[in-house]
C-alpha cells in the first residue's frame, strides 16, 4: 500500500512563500535609489542606427558615425552654411589665383584643443598626410590631384593642383572628406594610434572619453575660435537600432538623435515630446549590378529590369514617403534641381520592359540573385525590386540576405549578380558619379567602364564654371539612365529627432551632427 502522508496547510504555504519572497527581494531592492539623471548642461545626442565607431582620426575615418563626431572636434578650411553655401571656416577667406591655384588666408589666433597654435603648417601637414600613400587614407583620391601645398606665410597657404580640379573646394569642407585639419605637433607627439583614439582638432568639443561601441563623451572647448559652446558636455551613446533610438528619445533617455526610422516619422511628427527635423538628404540608393557577368552584363536586361519596377512604390513602401525617386545617381538636393529628367529606361513601364527583355539574350525564367543586407528597409527595397521584376518579366530573381561586410566583399570580388546599395553624406557630384560609375571609381563594384562616361567625368572634374559643370553632370546622368551601370532607385530624406528643449541644431542635407553642438542650447 503506497499511502504517503504529508500535507502542508494553507497558512504554512503562505508563510513559506512570504519568507522566500522577502529573502529574495531583499537583495536587489535594498539599494533602490533614483535613476541618476545626467547633470544639467549635458546634451545627450544619440547616434542611432550605428554602434561601431572605429577611429576618430579624420584621415582614417570611413564610417558616417565616425564623421558625426569628427565634425564637432575638428574644422576644415571651409564649411557649408545653413543654405548649403560654401563659407570659410578655418580659412578667413580664399581666392582663385589661377585655374590650378587656390590661396587661403587663415584665421588668426586659432588654437588647437591642446592649446597649440594653428598655422599654415598644420594645413600643409594635414593634406599631405591624407595624400601620402603610407597613410592609406580612404579619402586619398580626393586630394590626389594636388601637386603642392605652399606656405606663403604662417597664415597664408596656396594649394596647387596638377590640372584644374573643380571639386577641390568641396573636398576641403568639414564633411566626409578627411581633410579636417589636425595638429601636426599633437599628432607627432601622440603617435598615429593614440591620435586615432583621442584626436586633437580646433572644433568646439574635445573628445574626452570614448567607450568603444558604447558611447563617446565630449566636453566643451572654451577656447574654440567659433566661440565657447553653450553646453558643457555632450554624451553620444551609440544606439545600434534606429527604433531603439526612437524609444530612447520618447522615454527621455536622449535629447537628440542622428537618424529616425522612416516608418515612424508620420506618427512622431504628431507627438509633443519630440520635434522632427527632416529634409531631402544627400544620398543615393540604387541596385548595384554586375556588368561583367550574369544577366546584368546585358544592357537590355538591365534596362528591362529597370523599367520593370516602380520607383514611386519604393518610396512609398520602403521609405513610407520619406524621399524621392531619382533617375540617376545624383541626389536632387546636390544641385537644387528638384526636377531631373526622366529617361525612358528609368521609368516604370511593364510593356516596354517586356519588349526590352525580348531584345536581350535573356528570357523570362532567367535566374539571378539580389543581395540584401542591413536593416529592414534595405531588405524591403530588394524585395520590391525583385518581386516587381519577376512579376513583370517572369524572371527568377531571388533575394539573399547577408551582412554588409559579406555583401560588399562579394561585390568587390565580382561574386554577385545584384545588390542593394547606397551612399550618403557626400557633397560633390564627383563623389557620387565619379566613384560609382567612373571606371576607376572605388565604389564602382559593377565593373562598368565607359570611355564616354570617363570623358564626361574628367570634364566635370576640370570644369570650374559651376553652370557648365552642372551641364556635364546632367549629361553623365543621362548616360547613366541609358547604360544603367546601376539601377537608380531613390534618395531618402534625412531626419533628426529632438526633445523640444533642444535649440540651435541646424540640420544639413549631408547628415551633419556634432558640428552643430557648439550652438546648441538646452532650454
Amino acid at each position, binding site marked *: *500500500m503506497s*499511502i*504517503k*502522508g*504529508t*500535507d502542508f*496547510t494553507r497558512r504554512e504555504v503562505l508563510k513559506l512563500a512570504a519568507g522566500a519572497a522577502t529573502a529574495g527581494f531583499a537583495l536587489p531592492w535594498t539599494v533602490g535609489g533614483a535613476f541618476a539623471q545626467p547633470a544639467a548642461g549635458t546634451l545627450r545626442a544619440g547616434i542611432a542606427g550605428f554602434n561601431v565607431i572605429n577611429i576618430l582620426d579624420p584621415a582614417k575615418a570611413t564610417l558616417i558615425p565616425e564623421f558625426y563626431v569628427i565634425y564637432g572636434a575638428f574644422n576644415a578650411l571651409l564649411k557649408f552654411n545653413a543654405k548649403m553655401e560654401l563659407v570659410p571656416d578655418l580659412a578667413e577667406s580664399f581666392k582663385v589665383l589661377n585655374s590650378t591655384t587656390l590661396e587661403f588666408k587663415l584665421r588668426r589666433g586659432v588654437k588647437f584643443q591642446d592649446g597649440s597654435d594653428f598655422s599654415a603648417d598644420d594645413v600643409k601637414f594635414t593634406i599631405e598626410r591624407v595624400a601620402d600613400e603610407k597613410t592609406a587614407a580612404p579619402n586619398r583620391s580626393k586630394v590626389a590631384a594636388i601637386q603642392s601645398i605652399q606656405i606663403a606665410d604662417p597664415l597664408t597657404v596656396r594649394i596647387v593642383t596638377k590640372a584644374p580640379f573643380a571639386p577641390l573646394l568641396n573636398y576641403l569642407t568639414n564633411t566626409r572628406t578627411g581633410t579636417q585639419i589636425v595638429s601636426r605637433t599633437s599628432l607627432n607627439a601622440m603617435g598615429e594610434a593614440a591620435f586615432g583614439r583621442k584626436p586633437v582638432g580646433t572644433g568646439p568639443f574635445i573628445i574626452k572619453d570614448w567607450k568603444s561601441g558604447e558611447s563617446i563623451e565630449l566636453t566643451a572647448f572654451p577656447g574654440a575660435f567659433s566661440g565657447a559652446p553653450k553646453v558643457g558636455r555632450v554624451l553620444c551613446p551609440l544606439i545600434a537600432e534606429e527604433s531603439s533610438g526612437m524609444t530612447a528619445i520618447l522615454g527621455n533617455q536622449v535629447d537628440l538623435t542622428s537618424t529616425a526610422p522612416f516608418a515612424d516619422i508620420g506618427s512622431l511628427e504628431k507627438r509633443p515630446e519630440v520635434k522632427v527635423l527632416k529634409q531631402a538628404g544627400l544620398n543615393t540608393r540604387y541596385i548595384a549590378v554586375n556588368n561583367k557577368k550574369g544577366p546584368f552584363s546585358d544592357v537590355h536586361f538591365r534596362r528591362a529590369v529597370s523599367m520593370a519596377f516602380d520607383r514611386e512604390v519604393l518610396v512609398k513602401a520602403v521609405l513610407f514617403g520619406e524621399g524621392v525617386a531619382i533617375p540617376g545617381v545624383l541626389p536632387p538636393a546636390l544641385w537644387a534641381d528638384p526636377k531631373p529628367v526622366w529617361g525612358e529606361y528609368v521609368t516604370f513601364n511593364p510593356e516596354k520592359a517586356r519588349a526590352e527583355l525580348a531584345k536581350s539574350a535573356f528570357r523570362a525564367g532567367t535566374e539571378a540573385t539580389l543581395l540584401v543586407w542591413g536593416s529592414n528597409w534595405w531588405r524591403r527595397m530588394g524585395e520590391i525590386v525583385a518581386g516587381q521584376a519577376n512579376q513583370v518579366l517572369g524572371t527568377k530573381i531571388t533575394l539573399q540576405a547577408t551582412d554588409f561586410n559579406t555583401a560588399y566583399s562579394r561585390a568587390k570580388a565580382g561574386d554577385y549578380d545584384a545588390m542593394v546599395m547606397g551612399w550618403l553624406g557626400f557633397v560633390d557630384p564627383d563623389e557620387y558619379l565619379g566613384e560609382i560609375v567612373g571606371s576607376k571609381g572605388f565604389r564602382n563594384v559593377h565593373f562598368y567602364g565607359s570611355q564616354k562616361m570617363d570623358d564626361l567625368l574628367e570634364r566635370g572634374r576640370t570644369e570650374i564654371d559651376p553652370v557648365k559643370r552642372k551641364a556635364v553632370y546632367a549629361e553623365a546622368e543621362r548616360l547613366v539612365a541609358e547604360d544603367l551601370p546601376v539601377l537608380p532607385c531613390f534618395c531618402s530624406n534625412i531626419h533628426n529627432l529632438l526633445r523640444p528643449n533642444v535649440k540651435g541644431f541646424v540640420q544639413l542635407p549631408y547628415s551633419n551632427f556634432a558640428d552643430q553642438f557648439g550652438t546648441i542650447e538646452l532650454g
Partner: protein
Amino acid sequence: MSEAALIEVENLRTSFAVGSQRVEAVRGVSFSIAAGEVFGLIGESGSGKTVTGLSLLRLLPPHAAVAADAMRFRGEELGRLSDAEFRALQGVQLAMIFQDPVGSFNPAKTVAWHLQHAIARRRACSGSASGSGGGDWAEEAAQDLRNVGIRAPERVLASYPHQLSGGMLQRALIAMVIALRPALIIADEPTTNLDNLVERQILELIRAQQKKLGASVLYVTHDLGVAGEICDRIAVMYAGEIVEMGPARDVLERPRHPYAQGLLQTSASLERRDEYLYELQGEPGGRGDATGCAFAARCPQAMAQCRTTQPRLVEVGAGHVSRCLLHEQ
C-alpha cells in the same frame, strides 16, 4: 474498555478518494491499548493495518478521510484537536517507527542532526531542564545510541544515512524515537527489511526500551512469529476489519477465525520448510460480497450464508473475540 487504556479507538473508518470513487481501507476498527502494553496488528499486505496506524497519527494524505466514533488518548478525544494541537502530541506522545529505516532519514543530514532535533523537540515540550538528563544533547544522543546497542556512537552520529547499514539505521531510528520518550510507539513492520539476526536484536531492543520507558507499542506486522515474540495482545486484520483479537498466546496457539488459522498454518509451513507450502487460496485481501463476510470467497469453511450475512465479533474466550459465523452457530 478499561479506564487504564492509553489509547482507545472505536469504529475507525478510513477511506481514500480514487478518481470519483471512495475506497474503504479501514472499515470499523475498534481496539484499545493499555499503558505499557504491546499490541500487535497482524495481517497481509493491504489488510489496512498500516493505514490504521497512520490514521491514528494523522499522517494520511489529503485525499484520505478518517472517521471514528472515538479516538481517545489518555481519555482525550483526538478528533477534537486542531492540527496545531495535534502536532504538539506527535513525536513526544505518539511516535512512529517506519518500515524502511533508510528512507526514514533525511539523506542530507547526519544522524547527529536527526537526534539533536529530536532531543531538542522533547526538551522544548517537556519544559527546558525537566527532561531526563538535561545537559548536552550530544552526550544524550550518544547515550541513546548506546542504549540501542550501538557500540561506537560517535562514528554513527557523524555519519550520513547512506553510510550506514539498514540494521544500524533502524537502531538509530529507534533511538531517535526513544529520544522523544513517547507514550505510544507505533511500529510499522520495523524489521521487515532486515535480516533475521538483526531482526531478533531489534525486537529485543524494542521490548527492552518499551519496558524501560513504560511506553505502549502498537506493533504492526505480517509475521506471526515476530508478533508472538513481542506482543501482549494481538488483533488479526483482514480487508480493513479486525477478524480476531485476543491475548497473543491465545490467538497464536488457538486461532478461531479461519483466516487466522490459515495465516498460522502458512507461517508454520514456512517455518518447517515444507515441500508443499500451505497457502491461502485466492487473492490476498480480496473482498467477497459487500453483504457477506469479507473472507468468504477464500474461506475453506465458507457456507452459503457467509455470502449474505455479515459476521459480528463474538467473544470466544477471555478477552478473545473473533468475527465468524461459525462461532454464532
